Structures are given as C-alpha cells and as structure tokens.
C-alpha cells in the first residue's frame, strides 16, 4: 500500500462538501480552522464565491484555542457574526460549523457549540464533527441530511397538502406528473455551467414537478416542502443520506442515477477509438474513475448506448451508494489506482489522472473533468453532461 501520493491530487474534503452543499441557502457557515481551509475552499472548490452572496467564514483557530479548548470563543464569535449580519440587514437562516484536523484531534465539541449557538441566536444550527480528512461526499451528505430535520415541514394536513402541490405545479407550468426532489446537486459534482438546471429541465420535460433541488437553484422555503414528493432522485453520493432521511420521515422512496446527455457524450467521446468491443484478450477493460452515481450512470450509458462491455468503475470516495459491482474497485490508494489505470484499455477520468499513465502508454485517456478533484483547473472544459430532455 502506498504511503505517499506522488502523482495525483486529492478530492475535496468533508468540510468543503458541507460548505458547498449549504452555500446557496442563506446560512452563516463557519470553518473551524486556522486559515488555510477558507482559502482552499473558496479558491478551488467554490465557483460561486465571486458572484453569489454567502456568509462563509473561518474561525481563525490559534494554538491557544487548541491547547485550552475554548469552544466558548467559537460560540461567542459565531453569535457576534450573526448579530453583525442582522445589523447589515442580512439575517442568516441558520448557522453551520464544520471541523478541520485540529478540532478533530483535540475532540472539540462542535455539536455542543452548535447547540449553544442555537440557544443564543434562535437559529437552527448544525455542528458537523468532521476533520477535513474524509472526502466531500461525507460532509455534503451530512449537511443535506440535516436540512430534513431542520427545515422540512413535518406535518401537513391533507387539504393543505393538495394546495401546496398545486402551487408548486402552477409555478412550473406542469400539472399532472409526479412530484420530486433532486438530491445531491453541488458544484463539486456538477459545476455551475448548467448541469443543475438540466436536471430540472429533464424532469419537467417529462411532466414532473420539481419541488426542490438540493441544493443549487432552490431556496430553503422550497426545500421545506420536500416532504410532498412522490419520489426523490439521488444524483450524487452527497444526496443519499438526505434521501434516506426523507424516506424515514415521510416514507418517500428514492431512485439513484442520472441520464447522460447524448450530444455531450458524442463530443466527449468524439476522438475515442472503438476500443471496447475489439479487445484482443479477455482482460481488457474500460475504467471510469469518479464519484459513484456519475460513474454508474456513465457505465450504463456506455453499455446501453455504445455497446461497451467490461466497463469497470474505480471509486476513490467513501460513499458508493451500493452501486459498485464485484469487478469494480473501491480504493483511494495511489498505487492501486495507478495499477488500474495502467491496466486499462481506456480510462475515462479527470485530466489529473492522466499523470498515472506510463510513458509511451497505449491506453486511451478520455478527459472528463471533475471539479471535486481538479478544482477550477478544467472548469471551462466540463460539459453539460446531464440530459435536459426526457
């Protein structure tokens, strides 16, 4: 097993996933860290930082805080920030705190701090006990799941339920189809180039009513009505915990997957040789590297639409949504990733993975940038790969 990561990058962290998931919802979000996490997240992982209002801050943790604990300082600073925002006419809807390696190491009671902030501000408060060590699917998943209990309307009388549904339907000019929520939409998986809107268009074009998208393009008030859904659609691993929670609370079932846009796929694979069906030996395979729902959906597309066989997924992220097969790989070990890449006939992955190819390799590499991996480096090359037409 490799100790080092010589060639490759690292996925966005749990703390950043939390921030990305909650970004558009009007909350005050705190990264409990010294300084670097703020800069890393807003530079590489948050394309909305420049254009869209948010209140994401760093707690400016110091050595003294680490040695003395000092959750009270964190609480006091958070409460002061809430007051300052209210004075500016921008009252936050909630407070969320996420941990980083230092608070994790010293056992900082982030959940307790959140409870104290809730008591002093009256705002719903999330305390995410993450350490900046796991990947973004964990942080984003926990944050979206928290929204269910914090904001979703729990009990709605039957007659009001129908009225609410009618209001949603009339706002979308569709009336007869199912009501759905789209869960797991963040720029980390879908960038800000239009994929998020494609989801909505896709379901509306099939006569369905989209109650909310978690969480790009929807407000907290829309998310609050999520319990009205007939079914939820999980479009990334970040959406699975919320789907499970919605099922527990409302009994709403969920489906997992996305439909790839054919035109976009034609472009992505424009230069691809017909690699898959002409293997000389049985050991050849196409390797998709990435987040599980995306990889699973892409595999389905390749198999159904392009006749690919022997497509394997390599998912380096913790949450796989139960989508991996026996022949797939679930690892973040660089050595194993390199071996898998070098053994493949075709690799479909973020461009940074190209570095793992051996010199003179005949493996065909299809670039498919993933913002949660390469950040903003290839943002302009991310296609609108989500189908917008039913």
């Amino acid at each position: 097993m490799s100790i080092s990561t010589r060639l490759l990058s690292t996925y966005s962290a749990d703390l950043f996933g939390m921030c990305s998931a909650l970004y558009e919802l009007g909350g005050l979000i705190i990264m409990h860290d010294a300084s670097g996490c703020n800069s890393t997240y807003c530079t590489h992982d948050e394309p909305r930082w420049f254009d869209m209002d948010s209140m994401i801050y760093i707690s400016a943790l110091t050595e003294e805080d680490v040695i003395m604990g000092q959750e009270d300082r964190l609480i006091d600073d958070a409460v002061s920030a809430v007051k300052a925002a209210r004075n500016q006419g921008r009252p936050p809807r909630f407070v969320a705190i996420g941990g980083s390696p230092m608070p994790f190491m010293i056992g900082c009671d982030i959940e307790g701090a959140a409870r104290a902030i809730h008591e002093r501000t009256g705002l719903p408060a999330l305390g995410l006990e993450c350490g900046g060590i796991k990947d973004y699917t964990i942080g984003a998943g926990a944050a979206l799941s928290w929204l269910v209990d914090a904001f979703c309307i729990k009990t709605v009388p039957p007659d009001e339920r129908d009225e609410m549904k009618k209001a949603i339907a009339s706002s979308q000019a569709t009336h007869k189809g199912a009501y759905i929520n789209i869960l797991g939409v963040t720029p980390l998986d879908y960038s800000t180039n239009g994929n998020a809107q494609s989801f909505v268009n896709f379901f509306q074009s099939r006569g369905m009513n989209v109650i909310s998208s978690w969480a790009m393009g929807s407000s907290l008030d829309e998310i609050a009505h999520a319990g009205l859904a007939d079914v939820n659609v999980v479009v990334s691993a970040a959406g699975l915990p919320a789907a499970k929670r919605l099922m527990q609370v409302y009994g709403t079932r969920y489906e997992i997957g996305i439909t790839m846009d054919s035109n976009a796929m034609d472009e992505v694979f424009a230069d691809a040789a017909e690699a898959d069906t002409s293997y000389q030996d049985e050991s050849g395979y196409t390797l998709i590297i990435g987040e599980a729902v995306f990889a699973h959906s892409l595999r389905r597309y390749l198999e159904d639409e392009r006749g690919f066989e022997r497509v394997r997924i390599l998912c380096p992220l913790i949450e796989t949504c139960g989508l991996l097969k026996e022949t797939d790989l679930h690892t973040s070990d660089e050595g194993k990733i390199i071996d898998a890449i070098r053994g493949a006939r075709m690799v479909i992955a973020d461009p940074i993975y190209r570095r793992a190819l051996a010199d003179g390799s005949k493996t065909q590499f299809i670039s498919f940038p993933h913002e949660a991996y390469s950040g903003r480096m290839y943002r302009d090359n991310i296609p609108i790969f989500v189908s917008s037409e039913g």
Partner: protein
Amino acid sequence: MALEYSPPARGTWTIAHVPLLIPDSYVIFAGASCCMRGVVLSAAECGAQDRFSMILVSEDDIFNGKMESNLIDGTSEILDALPKLPPCAVIFSGCIHETAGIDMDYVSKTLEARYPAVDFIISKMNPTMRKSGITPEELMRMQLYAPLGKSRFSAILPDAKRQNNPAAINIIGNIAPRSENSEVLLMLKAAGYIIHDLCTCQTYEDYLDMADAAVNVYMVPVAEKGAIELSKRLEQKLFYFPVTFDMDTLERLLRSFVCEVDSVCKSAKNKEPGNNDHQAKTLCLPDIIALRRSAKDALTRASKAAQGMKIAIDFSAVSRIFELAQLLFESGFDVRRVYTDSVPPGDEASNEWCTKNIKGFEIISVTNVTSRFLHCQASGAQGSEWLAIGQKAAYYCNTAHFVNIIENGSLWGFHGIIEMASLIEKAAKEESDMRKIIQVKAWGCAEECKRLIGSGK
C-alpha cells in the same frame, strides 16, 4: 479574535509557492486532505506538479504513532520513484504533526542519512501556531536559505570550498527580482558587484553561490528573521533596505548602504591587499537630486491622469501602505482608504500622519465578517470611480482601474517610486479584467516555474 472572511483576491504567494523558487527543489507536503488540496492544486496550477508530492494523514495516523515513520517512508517512496534525486527536498509538516509532538529532528536526520547527497529543508505549514512565535511565512523565508554554506550537494561538486566574496551581494527574502532599472542595482553593477538573487538563479549551483556573498540585503519584514539567521550563520553583513516611499528615508538608506558596502569591500582589500580576484570599485552614489525630481515628475503625471479618481490601497500590494498613502496624498492624489488589519512594521509614523492629515481617511479591515458585504455594496454604488493599488482593494472597491502588484512587485529605491507612479498612470487610463486577474493564485509563480523549466534545469 473574531471570525474572518477571505476575499477572492488570490495573487499573494503562499508557502506552497515560495519553495518553488529554489531551482530543482522538490517539495513534499504532509497533512490532512483539506490542507493538501490547496497545495497540490496550487502546484498543478503553476505547472509544477512534477516537483510536488504529498503524504496524506488519515484519522488513524493521528493516533497510531506512525506519523514520523510515514513521513520518512513516504518521503523515501517519493524520492526513490523520481528519475533522478533532486539536489534539494523541501519537507513540510502540518499543524497536526506539531500538535502530536512528532520528532522532526529524528525525521530529518533519518532522511539525511538515507540520502546523503540531498539537501533537506524542513519547514512547517502550521497556521494554527501563527501567533505563537515565528509564522509559517517567516519560517519559509528563513528556510529558503537553509542549505547555504552547509549544502551536502555541494560537497560532491568539484573544488567546492566556501569563501566570502566581498564583491558579491545577496538580495534575499523576495518573491520577485528587483527592477533592472533600480538605481541601487545600477550603482552596484557599475562598481562591479556580483548580485545574487534567488529570484534570478537559474540553477541549484547559482543558488549555492549565495553562500559566498559578503553582504545580505533584505527589504520585506517577513524576511527579517531569515535574514538575521543567515547573516549570523555565514558571517555576512546584513542590511535592511526596505521598499519605502518616503524620499528622505530613501536618501538616508542609500547613503548608509553605500557606506556599509564600501566598508566591507575596503576591509577585505585591507586583509588581502594583493588579491584582486574579488574586488569591486568604490560605490558611486547616484544623483539623488535628479532622482527626486524624476520621482516628483512621475507622480505629477500620474496625479493628473488619476484626476477625479479616489485612491484605495491594500496591505498585500506594498510593505509600507501608509507611506505610500502619504506620498500620494502629498502629490495631489485623492487618497481615501487603506485596507489592512494591522499597521505594517516601519509604517507607524505615516499611519499617524494619514489619520491626522487626510480628511475622511478610512482604514478598513480586510478580514472582518462585515467585509463580506463590501464588494456587493461597491457594486451597487453609483458615480464612484476608484483606482485601487492592490488586488484586495480592487475587489472591495469593485474597480477595473487597479495596479496589480503583490508584495512590492519589483520596486526598489527611487526608481520604485517612479515605477509605482507609472503603474498608477497606466491604471488610471486603462481598465483591466479585475475578476480574471485577481483569481490567479500566486501572481508570477507560474511564469517563474516556466523560467526554471526553460533553463533546462
């Protein structure tokens, strides 16, 4: 203490970028995923991914006592996989290592024993400890010169022997070279001095030659601790020649610098009267009256171009923001604001002057939680035309007229004032794509990496 905001102005260099200045250095960071993400993508964006690797710390690693062995074995794994051993490896531990109390001395000695021809520079990415003594940035500027005079790599170079060359001067601690037009550089070159600057070194051997200089000159406060350590260790004379915008201070500095440098040279001549190998001529002070006049003329031109524009400066642009504010105000500019959270060292007098003499002068925090809303407020403001000096000022004032300068740029001496005036004049007349420019991380680093690749090293 309070929560802090970070504006999307990314041009300042981080400790991930600074070690890339050492030609042929290989940089290894160890830490948690969230910390590593910033550094690995920084290296990738600069085109330096071939000089960078990382050792990720897992949750288990924090408690299983393996952080030292992981650092050692991880570094070995990385170095052994390289086509050729680098002359220098820069190893960064993180907050997590320091809090766990790992023995970096042991790590460093073990690696040195395993790789006797590699210079190991041990540094820290430990912002948690930034208020506890030396900051990570100060440490990096110190460690940047750690191998000088004790390089194990140089032990295998032919005829390696260290001797102080009184006709060689080091400029240390910067992230960009000084302008070739600076009267200080011109004066030194005219007298036959060899000038070493890490920012212009092409090879690792060039860098090691810095150990031979007799004088170190530094100009930014963050480099002070490193400059003192290096000078003491190698018995080099140290001179602080800051980038200042006060012309009287500049004149005093120039005169004092000339005396100091001449005395070093003279003392060497006295010690070895027959040895002409390493001798420079007496320094000839430039025409200060002419320089002052040129500076004033440049400022007058810039002031005319910026007529009707309000001036804002931020701390990331220059070391002495209040001196610059004072100079510009006295030269007829409508100076309104400085963005900073502290008064830079050496700038105290001008801070007082500005506060007392500039009516309506504002000092605005860069990191305060309410700063988050400044850009939005500026976006909505009507009829205000700002000229910003610095990326953060440009963002907060939401202006396309700005001087894109980080950490003094290449300014130095009277020519620095002339150059700044020229940049202001240009900014007043032209608009820049502020949004695109300020989001480039570590302005100038990618070009620096290309320069070193282009040198074939």
